[in-house]
């Protein structure tokens, strides 16, 4: 059963502020998440990610600004917000002493299910998340992957309009990781909106439609310092580059001249005597066009190319780059 459609944004945050005594945790956060999308919320430790999620989930009150989740104001209508959300990960735990099935049945009852539906719903979720065999075991005996899956399953007892996920795949093996990512995508296809907080940028890269970077560059509280699709952020903040490796070191000179002509700027060389790197960015010609031009000329000049590649930065590089810029700006 898909959650009811949302008229407006699933999450809307304007000028949100929060202080803890003398420390400003949030210094005016603005964020909009469209329904049925995944927003990756990134940021260094202490930038206010947890504070923001706790306010959005009605566990904490803001000092200023407005936050609406699923169309409901978190301060004025917290009960309505709670009727539309699910909280997982470090923000909200399951009961470790009792079994996975007992947890699902308990939460199903708290979500107002009654009678045989409780057991049926628990079975459905155990099956969907591959937990049937461990269903009767206490959760404290579960592996990391099983725990994450149960955590997600509990959040989906009644499919929420908005779900807050926290590092859902940290510490998982690649297979469990892929499986969990698929579960999240399935959820989004059914119309759920996801706010994903993570330190692991490839996780955000895999799942997020848009990414917001929360940081506190001036020490005046966290705010969103960059926002966009992963592609936009990489193009704008990371910069692409063309890496060229020639077979014979003596051909590096002419190859460098060709790259400089194609890209309209000077390439850089490093320790490797056969390798040259040209930065291509959004402001210059598109990287692919430069690459094609360079390849034609290298071929015409008879230079033996061992490797030629257009390299996009990883989100990690974007993130580091952004954090460095913030530091320099202060």
């Amino acid at each position, binding site marked *: 059963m898909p959650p009811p459609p949302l008229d407006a944004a699933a999450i809307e945050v304007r000028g949100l502020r929060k202080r803890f005594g003398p420390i400003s945790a949030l210094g005016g956060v603005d964020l909009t998440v469209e329904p049925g999308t995944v927003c990756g919320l990134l940021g260094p430790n202490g930038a206010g990610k947890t504070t923001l999620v706790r306010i959005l989930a009605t*566990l904490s009150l803001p000092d200023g600004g407005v936050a609406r989740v699923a169309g409901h104001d978190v301060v004025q209508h917290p009960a*309505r917000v709670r009727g539309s959300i699910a*909280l997982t990960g470090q923000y909200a*735990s399951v009961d470790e002493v009792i079994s996975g099935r007992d947890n699902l049945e308990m*939460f199903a009852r*708290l979500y*107002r299910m009654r009678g045989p539906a409780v057991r049926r719903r628990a079975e459905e979720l155990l099956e969907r998340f591959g937990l049937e065999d461990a269903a009767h075991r206490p959760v404290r005996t579960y592996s990391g992957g099983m725990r994450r899956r149960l955590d997600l399953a509990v959040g989906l007892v009644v499919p929420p309009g908005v779900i807050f996920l926290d590092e859902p795949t940290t510490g998982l093996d690649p297979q469990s990781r892929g499986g969990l990512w698929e579960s999240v995508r399935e959820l989004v296809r059914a119309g759920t909106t996801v706010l994903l907080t993570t330190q692991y940028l490839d996780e955000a890269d895999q799942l997020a439609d848009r990414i917001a970077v929360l940081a506190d560059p001036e020490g005046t509280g966290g705010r969103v310092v960059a926002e966009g699709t992963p592609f936009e952020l990489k193009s704008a903040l990371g910069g692409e580059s063309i890496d060229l490796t020639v077979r014979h070191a003596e051909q590096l000179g002419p190859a460098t001249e060709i790259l400089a002509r194609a890209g309209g700027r000077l390439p850089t060389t490093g320790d490797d005597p056969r390798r040259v790197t040209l930065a291509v960015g959004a402001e210059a010609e598109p990287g692919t066009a430069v690459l094609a031009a360079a390849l034609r000329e290298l071929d015409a000049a008879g230079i033996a190319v061992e490797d030629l590649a257009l390299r996009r930065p990883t989100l990690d590089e974007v993130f580091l780059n952004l954090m460095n810029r913030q530091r320099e700006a202060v």
Partner: protein
Amino acid sequence: MNTPLPPTAWTTSDEPPLARLRWAAGDAVTVARRYLIHLRSAPERAAMALVIPLLFTMLFVYVLGSNMRPPGGGSYVDFLVPGMLAQMAVFGIAASAAVVAEDKDRGVTDRFHSLPMSRTGVPVGQSLAECLGGVITLVVMAGCGLLVGWRPTGVVAGLALLLLVRYAFSWLGMWIGLVMPSRSATDFVGMLMFPLTMISNIFVPTEGLPAGLRLAADWNPVSAVVAAVRELFGNPVAVPADAAWPIAHPVVATLGWCLLLLVVFGPLTVAAFRAPKH
């Protein structure tokens, strides 16, 4: 997905009061049921509930009681067992403080808070669970007492009063658990149980205590509870002429203490549970 699901965005705050009360009661039962599942899933906890009364019976009846004579004659076991039952009821403070603080530490409380469930349901359910735990402990303790020669004239009224005491004191425990920063910070409650139960009439009559200590012991709520259940179990101790009011009117005093605890710590606990934290 074939199981019919409840509406996703119902809103507890918009419901009529009677419906809210009904759902709150349902939530309380669900939370209390969790305690029973705990006993099943962690038998070592259940074992503790059995071992402590056994251990205490051994320690106090055979070690302490080997050379004790109660005032006005009679058996020391009849003097002691009602007191130890009261002690078990009062230990509920430490138990409920620990349970509530542990849930808070582990993020279970936050999970409850993020659900569209009744916020009063959680502490009420927790207190009902404490009552269930109390029934087990009290019945085992009473059983141990009967084995070592305790002879009450009736047990129902006494046990019922002790259950009320356990219930009322659990609200104080829950409040402590909620306002303490962590589970380990509630350890002091366990330590407080010693003066609370030793400076009372559980093990010795208070008449022999130094004046200041006797005043504290006579006005200790635990002493009123002990005097009340001695009366109800049919093991009464002669009341000295200069007895403090709670000792002279122990059942009324006990009911008063329970009412006071519930009236003060009921709302405080519910408020502490509802309040959004940092």
